[in-house]
């Protein structure tokens, strides 16, 4: 055995022993950590990537602030639009509150039960004829019930219920051509018949030809009215027509106490509920 062979044998023994020692020791995890550190230090990508990230650190923050500002601006604009809607809602609610507060101080006619309802719908083709309210049979609204309205703190005649549905009712306005109401003028005591004209104004017929009337005289519902309680304000005389020699009566034009275009809520006068014992 020559020298090289002996050296090779000893070297193999030494390398094998060292390698088996490395294999036996739990060195894999340590080597993996060392390799990771070495890769991080030597590989250019992590180093330059870190440098680039540090250099550009301010730009993403500025961009993020810009985006946040833009989002806040959009939110603010949206909130402003909602505020405008809320403002209009608030104004409407305040007006409604004022009307209802005024209505609270009113005394309903004796022997009647008050049912308040909102105006739901108005037919544009028949603006002075009828309205739809959000109360019906379930709320105790009867057919032919008188309907009153509030204007300037005064109750006035609006019309009567001509159609009752479970949750809604149709009200025939006094200004409809088919409406008629027995009324009187308190100043002179004369009674006549108020009829609708299909316009804003009403007409009161069958007044004596020799009676004198003044513009502004109030007209109230008559005790002879079949549907309406007596004494309810219908309107005021706005015009006294010239006497017609061919007619046996004279007429006056009446401006309604409750304008049809201003009606938001109405008061329906229903008969009092029957006592339980009577049923």
């Amino acid at each position, binding site marked *: 055995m020559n020298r*090289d062979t002996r050296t*090779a044998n000893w070297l193999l023994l030494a*390398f094998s022993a060292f*390698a*088996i020692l*490395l*294999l036996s020791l739990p060195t*894999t995890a340590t080597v993996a950590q060392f390799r990771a550190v070495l890769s991080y230090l030597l590989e250019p990508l992590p180093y330059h990537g870190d440098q680039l990230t540090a250099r550009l650190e301010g730009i993403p923050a500025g961009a993020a602030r810009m985006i946040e500002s833009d989002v806040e601006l959009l939110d603010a604009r949206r909130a402003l639009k909602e505020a405008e809607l809320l403002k209009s809602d608030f104004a409407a609610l305040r007006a409604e509150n004022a009307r209802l507060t005024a209505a609270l101080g009113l005394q309903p006619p004796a022997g009647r039960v008050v049912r308040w309802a909102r105006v739901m719908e108005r037919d544009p083709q028949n603006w002075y004829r009828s309205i739809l309210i959000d109360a019906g049979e379930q709320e105790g609204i009867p057919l032919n019930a008188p309907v009153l309205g509030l204007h300037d703190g005064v109750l006035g005649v609006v019309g009567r219920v001509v159609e009752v549905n479970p949750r809604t009712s149709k009200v025939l306005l006094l200004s409809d051509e088919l409406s008629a109401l027995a009324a009187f003028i308190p100043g002179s005591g004369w009674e006549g018949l108020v009829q609708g004209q299909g316009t804003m104004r009403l007409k009161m017929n069958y007044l004596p030809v020799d009676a004198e009337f003044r513009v502004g005289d109030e007209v109230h519902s008559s005790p002879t009215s079949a549907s309406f309680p007596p004494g309810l304000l219908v309107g005021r005389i706005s015009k006294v027509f010239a006497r017609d020699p061919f007619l046996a009566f004279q007429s006056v034009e009446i401006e309604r106490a409750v304008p049809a275009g201003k009606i938001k809520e109405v008061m329906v006068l229903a008969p009092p509920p029957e006592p339980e014992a009577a049923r």
Partner: protein
Amino acid sequence: MRVIEGALLFLGGLVFHWLFSTHLSFWGLSPNVLLLVTVGAAATAGPVKGQCLGFAWGLCLDAMSGHVFGANALGFALVAYIVGQLRRQMDVASPPSQAIVAAAFWLLYAVFYSCVGLVFERRFLWPGWLSFLLDPVYSALVAPFAFSAARRLLKT
């Protein structure tokens, strides 16, 4: 072997191994350049120099791989010892014989490495059938160049 040439061979082997493992790898196949150069070094300069180079390259491979640390070093040292002892009986002068020797040692080395994993890591580090069948071919194709480089740098 002069120190500078040995260092050049060591570093060159690492660089080429990295080159073939990354940029010249096809379908996951790559030759074990360090094993080829170890065989070439042992066949050219004997078992002592072959073992020294092989053990150093093995440690580098172990450091870069995620498996049992020391298996490549032991395997390369063994391959270098065997080749160095049998170099008188082997013909490694012509490229075909170099290719055959390279392919044979690649297979032996793969089996040995898998068995070391079975002993020390409780699992058989099988490279897969595709690699087991085709990597020796790829290594055989590269072997003449590796043997030539080793001979040029180590032949005194």
